[in-house]
C-alpha cells in the first residue's frame, strides 16, 4: 500500500520508529536472557569469555586515548566559556562545582558514549554487516550456534561494561581539563580546584552518571548489532548500516539522556 498524504507519512514513520525501538528492546531482552550462560554453560564457555575479553579490549582499551582527549578538551572549553561570566558576577570560585556536576552527571557519560559510537558502534555494524553479506551468520545458525549468543552478547556486554569504565575516566579527564584552563585563565590553583570539585560532587552525582553510562553502553552495543545483522544488499547495505548506526545512536543517546534527566529532576535526585 502506497503512503501519500502527510498524515499517512507521519503514521508510517511513527510505526517504523516504534517497530525499530521494539526490535532493539527484544534484542536486549535476548541478550539479558542469554548472558547468564557466560557463567552457567558447560560447553563453549572459554570461547565466550575469550570473545568478551577481546571485545572489551577492542571497545574500551583502544578508545581510551580519544575519549580522554575529547573530555579533557570539553572540560577545558567549559572553563574558558563559563569562567569569565562567573568572574563578572564575582562567583569564579564556583567554576569547579559547575564543571564537576556537569561532567559527572551529564557530560562525562554522554560525551564518552558519543565518542564510543563513532569508535566502536560503527565498526561493530560494519563487521556484522559484512558477516551477514558473506553468509557467516547463516553458517553460524547451520552449526546450531545462535548469532545472538555468539556475536551480540559479548559485544553488548563489552560496550556496557566499558562505557561505565570510560565514563569514570571521562569524568576525571573533564575535571583535569577544567582545572588546567582555570589555572591559566582564572588563576585557580589545581589543588584548590580539585578540593572544591570533591566537595561539590556527591556519590549520587557519580552513581547516576554511571547508571546512565551503563544504559548508553547497552544502546551503543545493541543498535549496531541489530543494524549490522539485518544488512541486505552487499557493500552498499554495509555502508548504510554504518551511517545509520552513528546517526541513530547519537539521537538515541541524547533522547535517553533527556529522559533520564527529566526523571531525575522530577524525583528531585
Amino acid at each position: 500500500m502506497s503512503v501519500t498524504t502527510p498524515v499517512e507519512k507521519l503514521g508510517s514513520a511513527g510505526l517504523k520508529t516504534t517497530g525499530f525501538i521494539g526490535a532493539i528492546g527484544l534484542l536486549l531482552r535476548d541478550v539479558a536472557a542469554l548472558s547468564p550462560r557466560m557463567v552457567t554453560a558447560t560447553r563453549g564457555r572459554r570461547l565466550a569469555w575469550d570473545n568478551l575479553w577481546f571485545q572489551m579490549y577492542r571497545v574500551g582499551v583502544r578508545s581510551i586515548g580519544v575519549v580522554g582527549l575529547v573530555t579533557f578538551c570539553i572540560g577545558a572549553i567549559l572553563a574558558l566559556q563559563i569562567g569569565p561570566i562567573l568572574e563578572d558576577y564575582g562567583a569564579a570560585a564556583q567554576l569547579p562545582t559547575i564543571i564537576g556536576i556537569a561532567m559527572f552527571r551529564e557530560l562525562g557519560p554522554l560525551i564518552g558514549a558519543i565518542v564510543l559510537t563513532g569508535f566502536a558502534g560503527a565498526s561493530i555494524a560494519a563487521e556484522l554487516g559484512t558477516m551477514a553479506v558473506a553468509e557467516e551468520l547463516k553458517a553460524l545458525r547451520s552449526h546450531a550456534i545462535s548469532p545472538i549468543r555468539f556475536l551480540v552478547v559479548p559485544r553488548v556486554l563489552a560496550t556496557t561494561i566499558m562505557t561505565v569504565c570510560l565514563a569514570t575516566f571521562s569524568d576525571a579527564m573533564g575535571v583535569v581539563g577544567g582545572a588546567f584552563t582555570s589555572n591559566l585563565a582564572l588563576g585557580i590553583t589545581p589543588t584548590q580546584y580539585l578540593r572544591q570539585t570533591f566537595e561539590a560532587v556527591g556519590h549520587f552525582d557519580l552513581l547516576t552518571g554511571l547508571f546512565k553510562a551503563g544504559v548508553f553502553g547497552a544502546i551503543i552495543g545493541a543498535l549496531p548489532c541489530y543494524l549490522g545483522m539485518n544488512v541486505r544488499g552487499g557493500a552498499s547495505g554495509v555502508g548504510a548500516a554504518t551511517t545509520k548506526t552513528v546517526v541513530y545512536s547519537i539521537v538515541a543517546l541524547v533522547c535517553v539522556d533527556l529522559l533520564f534527566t527529566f526523571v531525575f529532576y522530577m524525583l528531585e535526585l
Partner: protein
Amino acid sequence: MPDPTDNIIECDDVTVRFGEQTVLDRLTLNVRRGERLVILGGSGAGKSTLLNLLAAETRATSGQVRIDGQDICGMSETQLDDYRKSIGVLFQSGALFQSMTIGDNVALPLREHTDLDEETIQIIIKMKLELVGLREHAHKLPSQISGGMKKRAGLARALALDPKIIFYDEPSAGLDPVSVTEVDQLMIGLNETLGVTTVVITHEMVSAFRVAHRLVLMDQGQFVADGPPDEMKNSSDPLVYQFVNGLAEGPLADRRDRDAYTADLLGAY
C-alpha cells in the same frame, strides 16, 4: 549404490510461500541414504529455498519434511538445533569466519557442542583438514587462501561433527575448472568413504553429471524431471534438453514476454 527403500530425506507435498509469492509448489522428494542427489535449475527456480528448507533455515508453509523419519517442520528451535548438528552445509562462498584461522573455523562446532579437551580437538582438526587436503594450512586466515581452498575448508568445517547429510550450495561457483574437478572428487570421495548422503545444488552441468547418482530439475518451484545422469542427458523433454545442453532457444527463453518488453520501452501499459 544406496538402498532404494531407505529414505533419509522425505519431502511430502511441501509448499513455501513468501507473502503472495509461491517459491516451492507442492514438492515431493525422497533422497535415499548414501545417495548423491544433484538439484538443477535456473536462477529463481527455487533451489536455494529448497536447500534452506532442508537445512532448517526456512520453514515450510505446508507439507512435511522428514529427515530420518523426524518431521523438522514441527520441531521447536531446540530440536532444530539438534537436527542442525547432524547435518553439514557448504555455502556458496565457503562462509568461513574471517577473524578465525582455518583450524579455528573447523574447531568452532567442536568447541561449542562437545566436551572434548583441546588436545583431542586439535587431533580432529588435523583429521578433518587432511580429508580435504588442507592440513598444512590450519594456521592460515581465510584471506590468505584461494577460492577453491576456502570451499574445501568450509567442507572440513561442515564435516566437524560427522554429519549424516551434507548440503552443497553451488560448490563450483567462482572456481576454475581444475578446482571444480577437485571439489567434485572430494564430494564423491566423502560420500563413498564416509557414506554421507550428499545433496548438491548447482547449474554447472559438467560437475552435476560427474557427481550425481540422480538428478532432479526444478522450474518455477516444482520438479519437472527426475532421473539418473544418462536418462537426463538423453531426455527428449524440451525443457530438460534446453537446460542440460545450455541452449539459448527453448521453453525457458520463450517465457520472456516480448510484447511486455516493447510496451515497457515505449512507455505503454
